[in-house]
Structure formats: structure tokens, C-alpha cells
């Protein structure tokens, strides 16, 4: 978030308009802006933001943040690389803005489950995080609620079961799928309403894996939260930890050495390559083309093995810590990586040619599962999914962190929004990531890889580009320990894209569309 400060301030003033609000704006430690608004200012302001094409990229609650107010709701808006956080203090209720900005719907339900905040006019009042077996009037994220399992309901009355949207009509039938799926997949429930073979409506129910990540981080030293950040989503271990560390480092004013940033960036790009290869192999399995899938699965296994060689962990865990990385990488291992990158590029291109010269694959990929561009901003759809549908956002370019300002990736945009576009965008990104790793290896600076980190109190927002898109985290450190750790991964927003992408498609294409969106259940459910 190193956007030019005066440009940023100018844009913020322009958004807030003339008046007292613009005077009260303060800058956060990571280039984001904060403004506290009153109950009467809130709705007109948000309505104006919605009409001015601002995206609501985060909404969360925190306690005792403002003097005299029990709760504060933080609304994070993004426009043209500027991040503006609206702070609305409240005793227990707030107006719902989900009709204006649909990306508020899940977060409002989440704040209700976690803190008991009532959102007036919320059109979907069903439970989100805490399913029906949790006791009534139990709000897990409140500070007054201890982090111990509550007394769960032994059984749930049918009248209290989760009401799925009911679709009725001639020939409409429902297919319930999950939470336990047929493959080796994470749990979630899909409720299809189908006419013949065609999907008329899909409703997704998530949060089966809700593990209480955010509360787990509270009252812990920032160094100890690293292990929790790594567990948000296994295949985003590095990038979520980097997001947390950036926040902690910005608050404390820690200067991360250049060599550490170069190595962190190599890890983040290796993670992206591994994730994209997994999707591509999975998509090819789902269209019954194992020859192509094997090409990518083999390379992916080799990425895991090179990860283990470099760091001792196939998921690159235990490396990123506040202040840099936990230890340097041996020169011979870096040479092995350079050699791997060189030989793998050629093989990857061959794999791509095998796949893309196969008509039956293209036939299944296109024009399947279209994500329309018009839903991108309202739902805050990001990452390759967005870029395959005409979006051009990438956190590495819009809010560069670490050394991305010096190594900005090319933003690969396609416009069809179908499975083929998502496959192709990922293919280009894999080749770009290989190039970037190679470039970083040849220009790797010497020096230390860790600066001493002394936790300081404060709060800030941090955005990173994971393989799946924009991950957001907000960290508040008080008395040297974490007071609030809010994580919102790209999957949390992108999950809603699938409900749109499958409409009118046939049920057998659902697994393919799902795979092409590559959604993390763990990263959503927390």
C-alpha cells in the first residue's frame, strides 16, 4: 500500500465530499484511511459510495475499539487503489447495507453470530458461522465469552433446521449434496434446484469447518499467531502469514531486510504455482482427461518436493515470521530451485499444448460456468476468477507490498468468464510466476533475513494477493498481544460466484465449474 500519499488523500477527500468528515480522516500504519461516522451520516455516505462504484471488501466487528462504544463496525471500501475504513460505533445494532452492497450480506450475518449485532433490514437472517446446534443467544467472538466449547444442543428440532430457499414449479426437484462429498474434498453443502438436467438455482451452505481461528489468535503474542495464520487455509499458508506479519511489522515499524522479502516473494509465488497446478490438474480430471491432468500433477508434486528441500515443509510452513523469515536458505538449495524452474517451464508448456490441442477438453471448458463481469464488484469477486471475467484487479499491482512495486506482475485479463478463461489465466500466471522466481534468484540480495521484531500496540489493515485472489486481514495489537485478528480470504467472497456461474448449466458440469473457481472451504469457514 505504497500509493502516493497525496493522491490517496485527495481521493479520500473526493469520496467524502466537502464537510467535516474529510477533516477527520486519519491515516493508518499501512496506507489505509480511517474515518469515524455517526449513525446519521452512515447511510447517506454508504449510499453515495455504492453509486460511485466503491467495492465493499471487508466488514467486521470489534469490541472496545472506540471510547464509550461497546462495539465498532469497520467497513473497508476500495476504490482505485485507495482503502478507506468507515468506523461505525454501536451499542448493539446497525442498519443493514446488504441490499446496497451485496458483499455485506455474509459479514453482517457473521457479526450477528459472533457479536450479537442486530442489522436492521437484513434480508437474510439465517445463521452463518454457528450452525443450529450452538445454543441460542451465544455470541462466540464477544470478549465476555470464554474460548471454551459451549453446551451444545443435543438435538435440533426440525422447525429450527436451516431453511434453504425453496424453488417450486413443474418438474423442479432438489439435489442435496454434502457436507460429506464423494471425493477427497472439504465439507460444505450444495442445494441444487434442477429442471431436467439443468441447474435452475444453487444455494451454498458453508462454515461446517468453523474452527474459531479468529478467537484463537486473541491474547497471544504476534509471534505465536503465525502458526494460526498458517492454518487459515493450508494451501495459502505463506500468503496468509505474510499478510499477518505485514500488519504486525507496519504497526511496530519493523524494517524487513531485502533478502527476506525476496525469499518471501519466492515462497509466495511457489505457493501460487502449486495452487494453480492443482486446479488445472483437477479441472482435467473432471473432464476425464487424465493424460493432461498427470502432466500437471507431476509438476505439482515436484513443487511440493522443492518446497520441502528449501524449507523442510512441503507447504513452506515455519518460514515467515514477524521481522523476516526464520532462517536463510542454503545456496545449493537455491541453485536447485533455479535449475528446477528452468526445466519445469519447458515441461509445463508441453503439458499446456497437450491440453489445449485436445478438442474434447476445449469443448467441456467453453463456454461453461460463466461468471459475468457485472457481479464482480457487488460481490467483491477477485483473483483469477475476476481476471478471467474482465476484471483487472491484483493486489500486487493495486496495493503493492514487499518488493512487488519493483516486480509488478502483468495483469492477465480475459473476457469470456468461462472455465476455459480461468484455466488460461492461471496458465499465464504460472509462467509469469516462474519468470519472477527466476528473476529474483538472479538478483537475490545478500544480508540478514530477519530483523528483531518488538511488538508495539496499534492496528492496521493488510491486503495480499493469494492464488485465489485478494486476502484481507486486520490486526489490532494491545498490550503486546493480539486483541483482534480478522481474516477474510478471497474464497469467502468468491464462493458466491458459483451460485451465479452454475445457473443454466447441467449438473455434471458442476464439479468442473467448482474446481475452476478453486475455492477454499477452510479459508472461508475459519
Amino acid at each position, binding site marked *: 500500500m505504497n500509493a502516493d500519499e497525496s493522491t490517496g488523500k485527495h481521493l479520500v477527500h473526493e469520496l467524502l465530499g466537502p464537510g467535516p468528515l474529510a477533516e477527520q480522516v486519519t491515516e493508518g500504519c499501512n496506507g489505509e484511511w480511517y474515518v469515524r461516522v455517526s449513525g446519521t451520516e452512515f447511510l447517506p455516505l454508504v449510499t453515495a459510495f455504492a453509486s460511485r462504484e466503491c467495492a465493499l471488501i471487508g466488514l467486521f466487528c470489534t469490541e472496545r475499539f472506540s471510547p464509550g462504544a461497546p462495539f465498532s463496525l469497520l467497513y473497508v471500501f476500495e476504490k482505485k487503489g485507495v482503502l478507506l475504513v468507515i468506523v461505525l460505533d454501536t451499542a448493539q445494532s446497525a442498519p443493514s447495507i446488504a441490499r446496497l452492497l451485496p458483499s455485506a450480506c455474509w459479514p453482517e450475518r457473521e457479526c450477528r453470530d459472533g457479536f450479537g449485532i442486530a442489522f436492521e433490514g437484513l434480508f437474510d437472517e439465517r445463521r452463518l458461522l454457528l450452525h443450529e446446534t450452538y445454543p441460542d443467544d451465544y455470541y462466540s467472538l464477544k470478549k465476555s465469552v470464554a474460548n471454551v466449547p459451549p453446551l451444545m444442543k443435543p438435538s435440533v428440532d426440525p422447525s429450527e433446521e436451516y431453511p434453504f430457499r425453496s424453488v417450486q414449479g413443474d418438474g423442479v426437484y432438489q439435489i442435496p449434496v454434502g457436507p460429506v462429498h464423494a471425493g477427497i474434498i*472439504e465439507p460444505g453443502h450444495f442445494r441444487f434446484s434442477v429442471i431436467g438436467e439443468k441447474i435452475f438455482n444453487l444455494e451454498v451452505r458453508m462454515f461446517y469447518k468453523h474452527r474459531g481461528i479468529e478467537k484463537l489468535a486473541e491474547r497471544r503474542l504476534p509471534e505465536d499467531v503465525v502458526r494460526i495464520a498458517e492454518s487459515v487455509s493450508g494451501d495459502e499458508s505463506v500468503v496468509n502469514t505474510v499478510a499477518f506479519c505485514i500488519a504486525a511489522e507496519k504497526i511496530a515499524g519493523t524494517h524487513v531486510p531485502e533478502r527476506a522479502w525476496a525469499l518471501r516473494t519466492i515462497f509466495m509465488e511457489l505457493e501460487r504455482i502449486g495452487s494453480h497446478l492443482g486446479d488445472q490438474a483437477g479441472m482435467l480430471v473432471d473432464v476425464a482427461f487424465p493424460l493432461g491432468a498427470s502432466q500437471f500433477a507431476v509438476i505439482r508434486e515436484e513443487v511440493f518436493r522443492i518446497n520441502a528441500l528449501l524449507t523442510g515443509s512441503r507447504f513452506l510452513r515455519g518460514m515467515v515470521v514477524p521481522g523476516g523469515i526464520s532462517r536463510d536458505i542454503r545456496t545449493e538449495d537455491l541453485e536447485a530451485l533455479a535449475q528446477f524452474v528452468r526445466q519445469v517451464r519447458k515441461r509445463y508448456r508441453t503439458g499446456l*499444448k497437450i491440453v489445449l490441442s485436445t478438442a474434447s477438453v476445449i469443448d467441456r471448458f467453453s463456454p461453461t460456468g460463466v461468471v459475468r463481469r457485472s457481479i464482480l464488484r457487488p460481490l467483491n469477486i477477485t483473483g483469477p476468477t475476476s481476471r478471467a471475467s474482465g476484471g483487472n484487479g491484483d493486489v500486487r499491482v493495486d496495493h503493492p507490498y514487499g518488493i512487488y512495486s519493483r516486480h509488478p506482475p502483468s495483469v492477465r485479463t480475459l473476457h469470456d468468464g468461462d472455465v476455459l478463461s480461468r484455466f488460461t489465466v492461471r496458465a499465464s500466471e504460472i509462467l509469469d510466476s516462474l519468470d519472477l522466481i527466476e528473476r529474483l534468484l538472479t538478483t537475490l540480495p545478500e544480508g540478514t533475513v530477519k530483523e528483531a521484531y518488538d511488538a508495539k500496540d496499534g492496528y492496521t489493515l493488510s491486503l495480499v494477493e493469494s492464488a485465489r485472489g485478494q486476502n484481507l486481514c486486520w490486526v489490532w495489537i494491545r498490550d503486546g498481544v493480539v486483541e483482534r485478528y480478522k481474516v477474510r480470504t478471497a474464497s469467502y467472497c468468491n464462493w458466491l460466484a458459483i451460485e451465479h456461474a452454475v445457473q443454466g448449466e447441467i449438473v455434471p458440469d458442476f464439479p468442473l465449474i467448482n474446481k475452476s473457481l478453486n475455492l477454499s472451504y477452510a479459508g472461508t469457514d475459519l
Partner: protein
Amino acid sequence: MVNVLSCLLKRKVTADVTVRDEEIEALGREIRREVDAVFGGSLAIRELDTGSDNSAEIEINNLTNPYYDIERFGITFAASPRHADVLLVTGAVTHNMVAAAKKTYDAMPTPKFVVAVGDDACNGGIFAGSYAVLGGAEKIFPVDLKIMGNPPAPKEILAGLLALMRQAGRGR
């Protein structure tokens, strides 16, 4: 940007996938022997995620990539618990998954075996004590074998399955 059209219009491309990991081959031969001796030629696994961070799923999925390709050794992944000998459990058991997890276990025919994969499934890992989880898999059903790790590598999962089969063979 990768050009799809030019690939599609050019000559059809194909290539071999040649991989071999001698350590896996040796482990596989032992597994094959135990599968034949104890499980009558095939061992069917049903994977159950009760709240993992998805890394254990990724490693279990990796068992099917050409480096491991464990169907060669007689181990298959079943789509339904009704076809399974072994329940491979990942993740701490969340409150939101308890009912579905129990139903999955109950749907398996006996004799059945439960293997916990990864620290979270073994004892709750870092999530032990969290408001949202019960703990490790043994909180809801008996666990026959624990494979520790964050997550365990595919090779370690295979070694664990081999140990399970030897344990089951001794019990006969």
C-alpha cells in the same frame, strides 16, 4: 497470455509422463503384500474432513498422482462410506461437523478402521480447547491409528496405512 486458439489449430501434441521414486516403489510392494494378505486384495478408504485446514486433504489427494498412484498397490478411495474399510479422518472435529461425521462412521460396514491423519485429527492440534471444536477424532469414534504431522507427507501416510494393515493382520 497463453494463446488457446493457436494451440488448438496446431498439430496435436502428446508426451510421456515418466516418474519413478524407488522409495515409494519399495513401500508399495510391502503395502501390496499386506493388502493381499489381510484385506483380500483391496483396501477401500473413505476420506472424511471434520475441520482440517485442507493441507491434509491435499496430501491425501497427492497419493493418486503418478509419483504414488496407490491404486497400483490395491488401495482405492471409495465415494461412499458404505464401500469403505478405512475412514481416513482429517482435522479437529468441529461442532458443525459432528452430526455428519457420526453418520459417515455409522454408514460404514464392520469391521471398520479409523485412521486420524495430521495433528488436528490426532488430538485437536492447535485447535484443542477452541469454542468451535470438540477435539481430535477420538472424541466421536474409536481411532485405530494416528499419523501425526502438520500435515504428514504422502510417504508418511502410506507408512501409516502399512502399519494399520500389519496391526489388523496381527489381530486376526
